[in-house]
């Protein structure tokens, strides 16, 4: 990666010396932080092997981490699908030439984007419980997916709208001059290009969905954090939570890398600049 940015110019001999000095100071600071954390952990007796051994047993993974991870991925995957559908419908609604449809979609999207996901999840969890439409065992799962869908669906609706707005005007004009209706132009000309351009941003939104499934822990959904907490309660909390966090970090880092790669790949292919 080039260090070239507006703030720091190409360096001469004096600046290079300074950089070397700061580099050593920075390395010492990092080493100091790591040492401080380790000393603190050691004082609380957190570094002994039996505080970590339980993480490397088959039971911990077979009965807690893997089922928990499955709960997380299941909710995230379903929420991704439903959010994209919701986002497409409301994104197209916000682009509709018919006033009332556009207004309703705008109000719904702006409202849902402003309400915290947790508030929606708690509401659906308790409300669905009262309606007794759904098997009580599946309540938290549906509440998590519904909350995630409504929030992330509205974010995706905004992505769809801005993606279409960023297309060159000639695209829709060419479509209209061929005799297509405005609906056909949107469906056949604008949306396919906008969707390709918004792919990286969409993948970044999937990271948000995956992270927000952890909110399900608060409404008793059996996901990764919940599993880690139960394992930690039986053995050692800090260590179990660190493993859960690491699993999230690895999966999200993979998704982010994919988004960045896709953004670079697509920047050669589409007329509009794809952004992460």
């Amino acid at each position, binding site marked *: 990666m080039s260090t070239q940015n*507006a703030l720091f*110019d190409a360096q001469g001999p004096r600046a290079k010396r300074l950089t070397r000095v*700061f580099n050593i100071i920075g390395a010492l600071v990092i080493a100091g932080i790591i040492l401080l954390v380790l000393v603190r952990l050691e004082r609380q007796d957190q570094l002994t092997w039996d505080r970590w051994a339980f993480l490397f047993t088959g039971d911990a993974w077979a009965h807690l981490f893997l089922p928990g991870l499955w709960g997380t991925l299941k909710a995230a995957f379903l929420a991704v699908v439903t959010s994209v559908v919701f986002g497409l419908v409301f994104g197209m609604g916000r682009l509709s030439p018919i006033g009332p449809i556009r207004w309703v979609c705008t109000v719904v999207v702006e409202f849902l984007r402003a*309400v915290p996901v947790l*508030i929606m999840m708690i509401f659906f969890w308790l409300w669905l419980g009262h309606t007794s439409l759904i098997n009580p065992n599946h309540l938290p799962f549906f509440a998590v997916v519904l909350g995630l869908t409504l929030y992330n669906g509205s974010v995706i609706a905004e992505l769809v709208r801005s993606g279409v707005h960023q297309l060159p005007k000639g695209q829709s004009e060419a479509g209209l001059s061929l005799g297509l209706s405005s609906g056909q132009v949107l469906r056949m000309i604008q949306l396919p290009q906008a969707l390709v351009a918004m792919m990286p941003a969409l993948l970044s939104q999937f990271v948000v969905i995956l992270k927000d499934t952890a909110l399900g822990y*608060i409404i008793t959904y059996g996901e990764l954090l919940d599993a880690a907490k139960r394992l930690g309660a039986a053995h050692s*909390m800090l260590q179990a939570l660190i493993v*859960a966090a690491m699993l999230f*970090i690895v999966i999200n880092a993979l998704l982010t890398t994919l988004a960045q790669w896709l953004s670079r790949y697509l920047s050669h292919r589409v007329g509009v600049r794809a952004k992460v």
Partner: protein
Amino acid sequence: MSYFDQFSRLFADYDVVGAFWVNIQLTFWAAVFAFLIGAVVALMRISPVPSLRLLGGAYVHIVRNTPLTILMVMAVLALWTQMHITLSTDFKQNFFNFAVAMLSIYHAAFVCEAIRSGVNTVPLGQAEAARSIGLGFLPTARLIIFPQAIRGAITPLGNALIALTKNTTVAAAASVAEASVMMKKMIEFDSDVIFAIFMTFALGFVIIVIPVGLITTWASRKWAVKR
């Protein structure tokens, strides 16, 4: 019972405003600390010093990919219960401080990226022009780069503030009695007016969040750098 009666009953029976006040306090303190941490991390990430860049990059990548809920649970169950770290001698204040700390650490990563994207909006030619009229490093940074970078960062910083405001509800996982905890309690006791309760809290957040968004859009347009 009319809707108006339902709402007035809810506000009479429960301290809804007090619950939202907790969220606003969380937002304020976390915004201050997140901005300070985020600015330092952003400076590290744009500096030419490899070790600092590594530290800043690692911070952002680790924190941004960790769910806030895990950080909150970690604060209470791992840092406080297991590691005996306390942030206040007062029992309730301790949870509040932990929530502020975790919100700050989490959102600092997004503040850092907002500031970095602001700096990236400044074209290289601006710095080259500053150098060519004889300005040194600090005058260039102070007079040319930062004024433009701050204006470019308004929109992403505003978005980070909105996300922070909504994420204060996650403090529920760190045992802070804020709006979402209050909503849960109200629905459990008065489930017959569940929609009125939900609308109260949903609209409460709409009232807080939408002005922030409008001000951000207005400010970013007013101070937009013409290029």
